C-alpha cells in the first residue's frame, strides 16, 4: 500500500508540543465560564421557552444573573437555591429568576452541599436524556449498517427547513451518507439560539432544536427506506457553540462541525470566549459520541495552500490535544483538511496526494474529514466538475474517512438538487473505479510526493515549537494560522466571559468531567 515515510519521532514531538499548548489554555478554561456555557447548563436542566419577543428564557435568566455580576457562581447555583426556596421544579425556578420582581443576590444560607443535593435529580435526568439519544442512535446504526469509507457528505442550504428536509432525503436517495444543513449566514454571531422551525435564512438555515428534529425525521425515514443509516450534521460553532452541541446531542445528530479556533479566526469571536465554549461543547460531544469535524480546511482559503500546508497539520495536532482534554476519543475526532492548491500549478495533484496521505498516516484512527476545492472554483461548472474528480481520486486513493463532496457550482450558489446529484454520481464512479488504487501503488522513493510529506511535517513541528514558546494567545495575534490576526481582548463575545468563583457550581460539567453515569 502506498505510504509516505513518517518520522515517528517528529510526530511524537508534535503531539508533545500540542499537549503543552493546550495545557496552557486549559488552565485558563478551568478558571472561567461564559454566558454560553451557563445557558447550556440551563438547557440541559430542561429549561425551555421564549418570551413574546422570541428571547429564550435561558438568555433572560443568564443575562439577569450576569448583570448582577454573579455569573461566576454558575447558573446551577441559583437554580438550586431557588428549588431550596420553594420552586416546584427547575423550569419554575428559572422563570422566577428571569422574570421575578426582586433582584437576584449572591447571598443566602444555602450550602454548596444542599445545592448539589437538590440538583441531583435534575443532573441525572439531563444526562439520561443525552445518553438515551446516543443509545438510540447507536442502535439504529447497528441495525441498519453504515456505508464504507469515505463517507459521502453533502451540504443542504435552502434557508427553509422544509425544503432542506426534502433535499436531505433526495441526497440520501442519491447515495449521500452524511447530510449537513449549514447555518444561516449570520447565526454564528447571534448570542442566542433562535427558536422553532424556520423558513428564512441566507446561505443556510438557522440551527434550532426544532429544525434539527425535522431533518432527523427526514433522514430516519430515508435510512429505513434505503436500508442504510444516514447521518446528520450541523454546526456547533459561533457564540452558541455549546448550546448547539447540547441540542444536537439530544436530537441525535451524528456529527458536528466543531473547532477550537475556527470562531476566532473566521468569525472574529473573542479567543477567550471561544476556548471556554469549545471545551464545554466538546464535553457534551464526547459524552454523546458525536463525531466532530474540525475546520483546518478553511486556513487554505485565506492563506496559500502550498505555503500554509503545515499550518493545517500543526492545527490538527492542537485540535486533537484540545479534544482529548475534553474527553473526545480519537475515533470521533474528524480532523479537517482540504484540496485547495491552485489547480494550474504544476504537479498540484501530487502535492495534494502527498498531504492527504500524510494526514491519513499520522491520524490512522481518526475519521479524517477531507474537503473539496472551493477557492479556485470559478463559474465554469464543467471545468469545476473535473477539478472535483481529481479531488475524489485523491480521496479514495488515500482512504479518507469523510469526504465532503465538491460541487461544480461552488463559485455560484449553495448547491441545487441537481448539482448534488451529479456530484454524488461522479463520486460513486470514481470510488468504484479506483477502489483499491491505494493498495496497488507505491510512491517513488524520494520522489515529489515523499519529499513533500517530509517538508510539511518538518515545517509543522517548527511552527508548533514557536507556538509552544509564545503560547497560542500570542501566536494567534501574530497570524500563525490562516494568515489571520486576532487579539486577546478583540472580537465578539468577550463581555460574556466570566471568571469562576471559588464556589462555582456546575454539576453537569462535573459529571461530564468525572465520566460518571
Amino acid at each position, binding site marked *: 500500500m502506498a505510504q509516505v515515510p513518517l518520522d515517528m519521532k517528529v510526530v511524537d514531538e508534535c503531539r508533545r508540543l500540542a499537549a503543552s499548548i493546550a495545557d496552557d489554555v486549559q488552565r485558563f478554561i478551568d478558571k472561567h465560564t461564559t454566558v454560553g456555557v451557563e445557558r447550556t447548563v440551563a438547557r440541559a436542566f430542561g429549561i425551555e421557552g421564549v418570551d413574546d419577543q422570541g428571547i429564550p428564557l435561558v438568555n433572560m435568566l443568564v443575562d439577569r444573573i450576569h448583570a448582577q455580576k454573579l455569573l461566576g457562581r454558575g447558573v446551577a447555583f441559583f437554580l438550586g437555591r431557588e428549588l431550596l426556596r420553594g420552586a416546584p421544579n427547575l423550569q419554575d425556578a428559572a422563570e422566577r429568576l428571569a422574570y421575578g420582581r426582586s433582584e437576584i443576590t449572591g447571598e443566602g444560607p444555602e450550602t454548596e452541599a444542599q445545592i448539589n443535593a437538590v440538583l441531583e435529580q435534575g443532573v441525572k435526568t439531563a444526562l439520561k436524556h443525552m445518553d438515551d439519544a446516543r443509545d438510540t442512535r447507536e442502535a439504529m446504526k447497528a441495525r441498519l449498517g453504515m456505508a464504507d469509507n469515505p463517507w459521502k457528505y453533502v451540504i443542504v442550504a435552502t*434557508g427553509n427547513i422544509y425544503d432542506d428536509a*426534502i*433535499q436531505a*432525503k*433526495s*441526497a440520501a*436517495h*442519491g447515495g449521500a451518507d452524511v447530510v449537513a444543513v449549514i447555518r444561516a*449566514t*449570520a447565526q454564528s*454571531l447571534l448570542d442566542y439560539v433562535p427558536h422553532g422551525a424556520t423558513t428564512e435564512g*441566507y*446561505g443556510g438555515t438557522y440551527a434550532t432544536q426544532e429544525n434539527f428534529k425535522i431533518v432527523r425525521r427526514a433522514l430516519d425515514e430515508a435510512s429505513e427506506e434505503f436500508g442504510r443509516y444516514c447521518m446528520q450534521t450541523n454546526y456547533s460553532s459561533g457564540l452558541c457553540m455549546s448550546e448547539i452541541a447540547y441540542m444536537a446531542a439530544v436530537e441525535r445528530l451524528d456529527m458536528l462541525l466543531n473547532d477550537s479556533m475556527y470562531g476566532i479566526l*473566521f*468569525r*472574529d469571536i473573542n479567543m477567550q470566549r471561544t476556548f471556554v465554549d469549545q471545551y464545554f461543547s466538546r464535553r457534551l460531544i464526547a459524552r454523546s459520541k458525536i463525531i466532530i469535524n474540525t475546520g483546518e480546511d478553511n486556513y487554505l*482559503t*485565506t492563506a496559500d495552500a502550498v505555503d500554509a500546508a503545515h499550518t493545517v497539520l500543526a492545527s490538527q495536532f492542537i485540535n486533537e490535544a484540545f479534544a482529548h482534554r475534553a474527553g473526545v476519543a480519537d475515533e470521533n475526532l474528524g480532523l479537517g483538511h482540504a484540496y485547495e492548491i491552485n489547480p494550474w500549478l504544476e504537479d498540484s495533484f501530487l502535492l495534494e496526494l502527498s498531504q492527504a496521505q500524510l494526514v491519513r498516516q499520522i491520524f490512522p484512527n481518526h475519521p479524517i474529514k477531507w474537503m473539496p476545492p472551493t*477557492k479556485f472554483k*470559478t463559474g465554469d461548472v464543467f471545468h469545476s466538475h473535473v477539478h472535483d474528480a481529481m479531488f475524489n481520486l485523491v480521496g479514495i486513493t488515500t482512504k479518507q474517512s469523510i469526504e465532503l463532496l465538491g460541487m461544480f457550482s461552488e*463559485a455560484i*450558489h*449553495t448547491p*441545487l*438538487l*441537481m448539482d*448534488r*446529484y*451529479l456530484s454524488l*454520481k461522479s463520486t460513486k464512479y470514481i470510488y468504484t473505479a479506483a477502489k483499491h488504487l491505494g493498495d496497488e501503488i507505491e510512491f517513488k522513493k524520494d520522489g515529489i510526493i515523499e519529499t513533500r510529506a517530509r517538508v510539511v511535517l518538518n515545517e509543522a513541528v517548527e511552527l508548533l515549537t514557536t507556538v509552544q514558546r509564545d503560547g497560542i494567545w500570542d501566536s494567534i495575534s501574530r497570524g500563525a494560522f490562516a*494568515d489571520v490576526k486576532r487579539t486577546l481582548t478583540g472580537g465578539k463575545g468577550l463581555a460574556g466571559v466570566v471568571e469562576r468563583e471559588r464556589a462555582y457550581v456546575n454539576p453537569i460539567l462535573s459529571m461530564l468531567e468525572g465520566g460518571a453515569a
Partner: protein
Amino acid sequence: MTLIPKHPHLLRAYGDREGDGMVQMTFTLRISPGAQAKEVAKRFAEAHGLREPLISAMEECGPGYTYFVAYGHSIHHVDVSEVDVPEVKMEDLDKHDIEERIEHQIGRKVVVVGACTGFDAHTVGIDAILNMKGYAGEKGLESYKWFDAHNMGAQVENEALLARALAVGADAILVSQVITQRNSHKENASALITLMKERGLRERFVMLLGGPRIDHKLGLELGFDAGFGPGTLPKHVAAFVVQRMMERKQ
C-alpha cells in the same frame, strides 16, 4: 440548420456552424423519469425557444425529481448594436505610473478605507486589493508608497465603516460584498449610500464596490462611483481612485 440569414449585428449561439443556434441546457423537473417526462422536458425546452430539442439525459436525481440535459437550436438572437454597457474607463497604469502621478499631481498620500460589510465574513477579496500580499502576483495597496490603506476586515457595520473613513480622512471607501443570496449584497451596499446621503457625505468620498457578482453597471445603479468584479487587480483600483480624485479636483 440555419435559422435566419447572417447579419453582423445579430448574434446567435454558435455550436458547430455559423447560425445553427446550438445551445445546451440542464434543468430539473418534479416528475419521475419516463416517456411522459421526456416529452415534458422536450416541451419545456421548446418553451425556452429551442427547436428540435434532444433530451440527451434523463435521470432521477431525487425521489420524484428528474434531471435533464437538452440540446437544441435556439431561435433567439441578440442585436449587438443595441447593447450598451457602462465600463470603468481609465488608463491602464502600472504601480510605478500611479505612484508618480500621486506624488506629482496630488502631492500627498491617498487614504483609502475598505471593508466587507454587513454579515458578510468573506475577506479574501478585499484583502486581495488592500493587503501587502495582494492578488495574482500583484501587491496590494498597502505596498504602495503613496497610499495609506486601512483594511477593516469583514462583518463591518456601515456606520463603523463610515466613522473610520471620517476619522482617517479617507479619500475613498472600498466596499466588498460576496454573499448575494436574496440580493443581500445590493441591500447592504445601497444602505451605505443612503446613510451617506442622509448625512450629506456622499460627495466627500470616492465610493467603490467590489465582489464576485459585482460589475460596473451594478455599482453605478447602487450609487457608487464604480463597481469591480472577478479578476480585479489592486492597480486597477489604485488607478481608478487616483483618476477620479483628479477629475473631482478639476
